[in-house]
Every structure is written in structure tokens, then in C-alpha cells.
């Protein structure tokens, strides 16, 4: 394999995996955009959704469509319930209260999943082949293609929702100023609940894709760590930022792992995105597409 082919492969892998990171980051952005809350339990949402699909498929023999529908329904209900029980009482409290609540929630969910459904790794098979698609110099695993496709589709849907739909515009108004939105007759609590439910949808899809790739167990929650460099680079409140941030992180990781790791004995793949994140914080703390008014935590 000549060197340009290797570079092209690293690039294509970076793009596809980056878009899969974007899907997880989207859940984070949705909540932040609508509620100003930073959800540290995003990875755990994905893990719970993965458990739901895997258990429905494996333990109950449900068809895939039903397992996915069930996961979507449960995660939407979970989003609504979470907002009602845990987050609504925190409205108007300092942002750090919501942050601490989601950190606590993450710990509870990491224990809850294995406790309910067992800690052993569960397969999440999808009716797609494992053999990669070879297209010219490119070598594309079908699951990554599916993940990238789902990410782009939902990024477009949510982009449209926020820009064009009445509810989306109301949600942005709520994020800008809860008091002003309330004064304008916007039902703030309803939009908060809607945002968390939308995060539930994205988490269910993330659980499906990443669960197929990694298997389903408590490890699945680790994908949540990828969210932070992605959203810091792209902008905490920006849907296009989630795409661009995901792409940057995916490409940088792959190129670093392909060219620098062999010389330094590893370690740069995970390190490089965080270097970029720190640089971004120094130069453009609100991210590439983020709003300039930003609260650091």
C-alpha cells in the first residue's frame, strides 16, 4: 500500500468515526442549546439505550425494529421523566447544581445498567455485513457508514428543527433567556422536557450504532468522553459545530495514530484531540461555531 493510500484510508476512517462522535455530541448540544445545562451523563444515556436494544434482542428475542422502537420509547420517556423529577426542581439554580446532578446521574446509571441486565458483554447484531466495502483506495466498514449516515440525517433534522420550526425557535429563545421566554408566553418547562426527550432519541441511536461496534456493557459509557473535545472545538451550542468538531477529532486521532504513534510508541491518538481542545479554549473559548456568551465550568 503506497503512502497516499494509507493517508486516504486514515482520512476516510477519521471522517466516518468523527461523524459517529458527532452523533453522541449532538445529544449533548441539544440539551445545552435548549436548557444551558451540561449533561455529563451523555455516555451513560448511550449505554442504557444499548442495553435496552441488546436485552430486547437477546433475552426476549424481539425483532430489531421492535427493540429499536422500544429503546426510542423508553429513552424519550426517560428524558421526560428525568426533566420532571430531577431537573425541573433545579430550574433557576446555579448551573453547577445541574452539572453535579448529571454527574451523580451518570454514576447511578453506570451501576443501574449492569445491575438490571447483568454485567456481561451483550452482542447487538445488526443486519449489515461485517466485510468492509472496498471502493478505490477506500476501505469502509458498513457499520461506520451506517453510523455516519444516521449522524448526518439527524444532524440535518435537528438543524432544520432549530432553524425553521416554531418549536425550535422557541427552544432557542428559552436557551437565550428563560425569563424573557417566559414573559413571551413560552412554556419553558415543556421545552426543557422536549430537549431531554430529543437527547433520548439521539442516545438510542448512538446506543444502537456504538453498541454494535463495541458490544454492550458498562464500557459503552466511555464513548461519552469523546463528547468533550468535540463540543469544545465545535461550540457547545452549535449543531454544525458538533459535525465539524467530530470530524476534526476523528481525523486528528487517526492521522496522529497512523503517523506519530509508531515513532513515539503510542499515546498521541487520545492526547491530540485534547491538545486541540486546550488550544481552542485559549484562542476561541466558545468554539468554532459557538455563541460568544459562554459559561465555563
Amino acid at each position, binding site marked *: 500500500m503506497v503512502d497516499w493510500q494509507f493517508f486516504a484510508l486514515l482520512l476516510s476512517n477519521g471522517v466516518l468515526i468523527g461523524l459517529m462522535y458527532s452523533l453522541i455530541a449532538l445529544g449533548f448540544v441539544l440539551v445545552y442549546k435548549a436548557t444551558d445545562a451540561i449533561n455529563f451523563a451523555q455516555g451513560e444515556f448511550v449505554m442504557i439505550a444499548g442495553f435496552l436494544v441488546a436485552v430486547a434482542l437477546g433475552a426476549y428475542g424481539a425483532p430489531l425494529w421492535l427493540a429499536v422502537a422500544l429503546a426510542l420509547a423508553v429513552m424519550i420517556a426517560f428524558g421526560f421523566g428525568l426533566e420532571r423529577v430531577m431537573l425541573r426542581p433545579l430550574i433557576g439554580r446555579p448551573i453547577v447544581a445541574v452539572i453535579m446532578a448529571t454527574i451523580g446521574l451518570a454514576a447511578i446509571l453506570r451501576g443501574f445498567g449492569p445491575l438490571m441486565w447483568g454485567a456481561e458483554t451483550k452482542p447487538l447484531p445488526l443486519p449489515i455485513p*461485517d466485510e468492509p466495502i472496498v471502493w478505490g483506495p477506500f476501505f469502509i466498514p458498513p457499520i461506520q457508514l451506517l453510523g455516519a449516515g444516521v449522524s448526518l440525517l439527524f444532524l440535518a433534522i435537528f438543524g432544520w428543527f432549530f432553524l425553521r420550526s416554531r418549536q425550535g425557535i422557541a427552544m432557542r429563545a428559552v436557551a437565550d433567556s428563560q425569563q424573557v421566554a417566559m414573559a413571551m408566553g413560552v412554556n419553558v418547562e415543556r421545552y426543557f422536557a422536549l430537549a431531554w426527550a430529543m437527547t433520548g432519541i439521539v442516545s438510542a441511536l448512538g446506543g444502537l450504532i456504538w453498541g454494535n461496534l463495541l458490544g454492550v456493557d458498562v464500557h459503552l459509557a466511555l464513548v461519552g468522553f469523546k463528547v468533550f473535545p468535540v463540543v469544545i472545538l465545535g461550540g457547545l451550542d452549535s449543531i454544525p459545530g458538533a459535525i465539524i468538531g467530530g470530524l476534526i477529532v476523528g481525523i486528528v486521532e487517526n492521522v496522529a*495514530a497512523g503517523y506519530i504513534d509508531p515513532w513515539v510508541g503510542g499515546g498521541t491518538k487520545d492526547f491530540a484531540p485534547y491538545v486541540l481542545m486546550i488550544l481552542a479554549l485559549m484562542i476561541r473559548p466558545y468554539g468554532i461555531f459557538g455563541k460568544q456568551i459562554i459559561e465555563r465550568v
Partner: protein
Amino acid sequence: MRVKVLLSVLLALAVAAGPLAAVAPAQDKSIFIPLLVYRTGPYAPSGIPIANGASDYFNLVNERDGGVNGVKIAYEECETQYDTKQGVECYERLKSRSPVLVNPYSTGITYQLIPKAPGDKVVIHSMGYGMTASADGRWFPWVFNFPMTYWSQASAFVKYVGQQEGGVEKLKGKKIAHIYHNSPYGREANPTLEELARKYGFELTLLAVDHPGQEQGATWLQVRRINPNWIFISGWGVMNQVAVKEAASKGFPMDHVIGNWWTGTEADVVPAADGAKGYKSMTFHAPGANFKVHQDILKHVYDKGKGAARREAVGEVLYNRMAINTMLNVEAIRTAMTKYGNKPLTGEQVRWGFENLNLTEKRLEELGMKGMMRPLRVTCENHEGNGLALVQQWDGKKWTIVSDWIEPIREVVRPKLEAAAVEEAKKLSYTMRDCAKEK
């Protein structure tokens, strides 16, 4: 009022004496062994079967035999989450119960406990992990890593691959890639592989995967570029699942992909489904629940409602490994009792038992483990023992042994190990003891 005061005093006494009463049996009539487990945290899928295997085997010994020669084993689990700091805290907390030995079940925790062992007089048994150099018992009297070390495993892997190619001399010009967890554990096999590459003339490529290893696309693109004849994987946790899946999805022949013994469990192959068929891994014991010891565990532990795992999880790879680990602990204590009598022993006495352990085929048969592992002999000089390796293969549903017992290339491993022991012992200011005087 007086009654109230009296009741308060009695209650206070009961509360104060409660923990002492619980500790007393461990100090007076039983032998206490702490279990550093990780039933929670990111490594729980591996930690749970390990913890269950230990708990079930100790319960079997207590329920079926009434303990070791009548002396019960008392154990207490402490959660480490596979975190070195928490593991050391667990050890320090449970030290008050006078443990005689500890199985750290983490290379990181093992390294931290090694300097403490001589002072605390607690035997460290790091079975198939930890510091390879500690197998030289002349320098490390308190540490045992039988039945095998990482270096012996790496040499057994090379020997097996050589056998598959028609002899180790046929390895000349072949390409072998080692994909390893980028940690002291993952790197442990590298010096041995490098030396064997020089000796046999194969081309070795070392590829690190950073923790946790959930995205390995770039690593496997490099593998594809190198196009090795064989791949050896030293992974842990999610890295294993992803590596097996990547190997399968890149179309690499799975019977030429071999994990080390921490990269060959049920959890590692499940996500890849049929793609994992043919994948192999090193091991030093048989998988499955078809041995008499399993029937005994089900009868004496599970039928009494004292089992730690689901019944169907009995016999999983890591469950069996820890059951064997625990059996070796028990047999070392039993060996010590032949010298010191059937009573609760001290750490020093148990250390003697470890150093004089001679597990024969006959004894394995009595234990219901014939064929599950090899006879084993430990000496003052050699704390690794004379263990041999096996290769197991995943057929899509279960692991099956596909090799004969493989002798490590000891003429390469042992001199390296002895040299490393001198280096490691220097760091701890240890002096070498004369084993001839201890016989």
C-alpha cells in the same frame, strides 16, 4: 432512668464489640484471605467472573470439606474498580484482619504491594500477571506468579506459531504484529518478543493501543499495510472486543490472530458474533464446566443457595481461572499445614507452603481438576513453577483447546528474568538469599 442508662451502655458495648466479634473467627479459628475485586467500574465484565470464581471455590472448600484440614477460610471482598489506588486502600484496610496472602488481580496493584509484602508478611500471588522478574524467588521471596509469566507466555506464543509454520526456523522472514494495551501490562511481552525476533529472524511490529481502546481504526489500517502473517494481541477490557471485531472486519484470517490469556474470554468474542469464529488465545487451563470440580461447586455451593454467579456462568474462562487461582492458594496452605500443623497459620508459614507446593496429577484428580490444568511444582528459586501454555479457539459458541501443552522457551526467558530480577530488586534494596540454605 437507670434502665435507660443500662440499655444505652449495653447497646454501646454491643456496637463496639460487633466488629470485633466478626473479626475474631478470622484471627482465632480460620485463615483470612482478602479478595480485591472489581465488580463495578469499566472492567466489571471481566472482574465479576473472576470474583465469582474465588468466592465459589472458597465456599466449596468450606462447605464440602469443612475448610482446609478443618480450618475454615474466611474471606472478605473489597471493591477496587481495577484502580491501583483503591486496591492499595483495600489492602491496607483489610490488613487489620491478619491476612496470610493476597491476590491483587491487577498488575498495577501488584507493583504497589510488592514492597509491602516482606514487612507485612503477606504472600502475594499474582497468577499469570504482575512483575515477571518476581518469579526469581531468590530476590522476591514473598511474590509468586505461578503457573506462568508474561514472558513465558510470549515465548510459548512464538513456539506455537513456529509449530504452525512447520518449525521455529521457518519463522525467518515472517511478519508478526504485536498489538498491545499501551500500559506496563501491555508492554510486558515486548522485550521477549524482540529477543525472539532476533533469534528466529521474524519481523516484529509493535503497535500500541491507548486506553480504553474503543477506536482502533488507525491501528488496524497499519496492520493491513504491514500485512503480517500472525497477530498477537495483549489487551484488556473494551480493547479486546474492538480488536477482535476489527480483525474480523478487516478480513484477516482469524486463526492467525492470537490473544494473550487476558484477551481470550467470552466477553471478548461476543460482539464480533460469527466474525470471531476461529480466533485463538493463549491460556494455561481448560475452559468449560465439564470437570468434577464444577459438579461439586454446583452441588455444595449453588444447591445451597450460596453461589456467587448465575449457574450457567460457572465454567466461563475467567471463572475457571480464578477457581484455579483459589485452588492453588488452598493447596499452598495445605502444603504449609504438613509442616506447621492443621491450625490457622501465619503469613510466613503460608509462604513456606507456596514455596514447596507440589501439585501432582493424582492431587489434581482428587480435586476434580484433572485435565483442567497441569501438575505444578514451585521451588525457592523458581516462583513461576513449571507451567505450560495452551492455545484455545473460539468456535462461535465456546472455547475449545486446540493445542498440546506448550513448553515456554525457558533458555531465553529464564536468563532475561534473572537479570531483570537483579534490576528490580536493586530498586527495592533487596538482597539475594541462598536457597540452598533453606532446603
